[in-house]
């Protein structure tokens, strides 16, 4: 071994130890413990046979998918505008829109309560307008609003960055060839943004699938998968089932990200 190689091995050793001891081995144990259920059956078969697990899985997928679609639509509209316009306070606005990125899920949950909870702003406004309080924080709708709150900034900033890198000559060329604004959008701009949209959309989906803090703050009876895992583990002490559901959840998020990466990477290569 040359001295340079020895030096490199020494430098990467701490990482290797930490990752093996505190990530790979525990994940392997989680996987190993996830098969045999408390009553001797196979956990994964029990998941398929238990309506509560399946419906929570379905609800989680639906909320995550809705979050992704709405976030992408809004962020693309707003992102294209912000990428192309210059106005005073633009960088301040972009900075403020970044802040929610660093908020933990519990804080986002609290902000949803302030917005749409029993003492929330929307409730007050609707009471003054119609005499009836509109309160939706403590439901799936509230959860969706919370997920939008932390998904929009991330997707929006990715799209702004991607749109700023677009060569304006492409759009000018399309217009010189007679394309109107909608054609330019559908034929030039959206295809060019596809990799960024896929990558950030998958990220929004995976984040919404695994988010825990928001649901935890809003209500204990929102049956999304992370809440079910938490309940199985802490209240029912059903470790095997919690492990199995975590593995299912982890596989879904990992798969979503892997597929998006494959797709966006392939399209980047095709464009280049």
């Amino acid at each position, binding site marked *: 071994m040359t001295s340079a190689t020895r030096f490199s091995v020494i430098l990467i050793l701490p990482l290797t130890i*930490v990752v093996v001891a505190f990530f790979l081995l*525990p994940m392997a144990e989680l996987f190993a413990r996830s098969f045999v259920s408390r009553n001797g059956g196979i956990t994964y078969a029990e998941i398929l046979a238990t309506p509560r697990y399946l419906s929570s899985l379905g609800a989680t997928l639906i909320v995550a998918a809705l979050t992704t679609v709405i976030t992408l639509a809004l962020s693309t509209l707003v992102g294209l505008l912000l990428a192309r316009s210059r106005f005073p306070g633009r960088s301040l606005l972009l900075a403020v829109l970044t802040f929610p990125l660093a908020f933990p899920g519990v804080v986002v949950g609290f902000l949803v309560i302030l917005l749409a909870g029993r003492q929330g702003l929307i409730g007050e406004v609707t009471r003054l307008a119609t005499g009836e309080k509109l309160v939706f924080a403590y439901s799936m709708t509230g959860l969706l609003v919370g997920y939008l709150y932390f998904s929009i900034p991330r997707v929006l900033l990715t799209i702004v960055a991607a749109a700023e890198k677009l060569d304006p000559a492409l759009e000018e060329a399309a217009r010189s060839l007679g394309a109107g604004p909608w054609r330019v959008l559908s034929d030039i701009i959206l295809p060019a943004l596809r990799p960024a949209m896929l990558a950030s959309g998958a990220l929004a989906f995976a984040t919404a699938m695994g988010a825990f803090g928001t649901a935890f703050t809003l209500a204990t009876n929102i049956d999304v998968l992370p809440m079910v895992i938490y309940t199985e583990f802490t209240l029912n002490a059903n470790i095997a089932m919690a492990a199995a559901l975590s593995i299912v959840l982890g596989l879904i998020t990992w798969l979503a990200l892997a597929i998006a990466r494959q797709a966006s990477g392939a399209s980047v290569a095709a464009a280049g």
Partner: protein
Amino acid sequence: MQATLLRSVQVLATILVTAFLVVPMVLSLMAGVTVNYFQGILRSGVTLQWVAEVWALYADTILLSLKIAIATLAATLAIGVPAAYVLNRHPSRLSRAIEEIVTLPLAIPGLAIALALLISYGSAGEFRKSWAFILVGHVLYTLPFMIRAVMAVLASIDARTLEEGAASLGAGPLQRFLHVILPNIVPGILAGSLMVVTLSIGEFNLTWMLHTPLTKTLPVGLADSYASMRLEIASAYTLVFFLMIVPLLVGLQIFGSFLGGAGPSGSSRKGKHP
């Protein structure tokens, strides 16, 4: 005509999205300094009594969060910076695989990782009870950000050629690392550090599972106050959290360009879970 319609929709969406993101923050900040939120800030007046009460009730969670954030930073610096250097220095299939594995904690929900740690080390008495248990979770979760920030800078300065230059002048591996590599990746280390501290202070998913009644961090305390305290105290506590996190976020805006794919605004490929 078409163009103006499209533009009007965009402007409207921008105003709505901005309001959606900003109004709740403002509500929360206001509620934290309002004497009585039911009566409103104008009628009941402004006060810092709730902030003082938060300090009395939750000072230990704030201090623990700071302690864990600093320890997480120290660990990610010690582990992540040398590792990023090696991964950049030896591009190979093995390096790619290591990078993938290190980034996995971002693709897997924190809940699952916390569960795995609890199953493996839950019976390890003293370790389980100490704040070091939370530290381990935070290090796993923040390491990829440090490694990516440093690797992005290493790639942008063409570190390999710089190192070959130093080697041609007689510098050995350690000298090259200390004299040429480290001084030139300071911006990446700085950006990575801001990211790590920000994420550590706000981490909830892992921490909620790993904490004990004696090791409550700020977000754990926040969850606690949201469930059991009056709205003004919960808001004042959130205000304290914002005050801690906003300077870090502003710093990130300034140094964020070095984060590349790892940054909050970069097209990061892997997830992170609020």
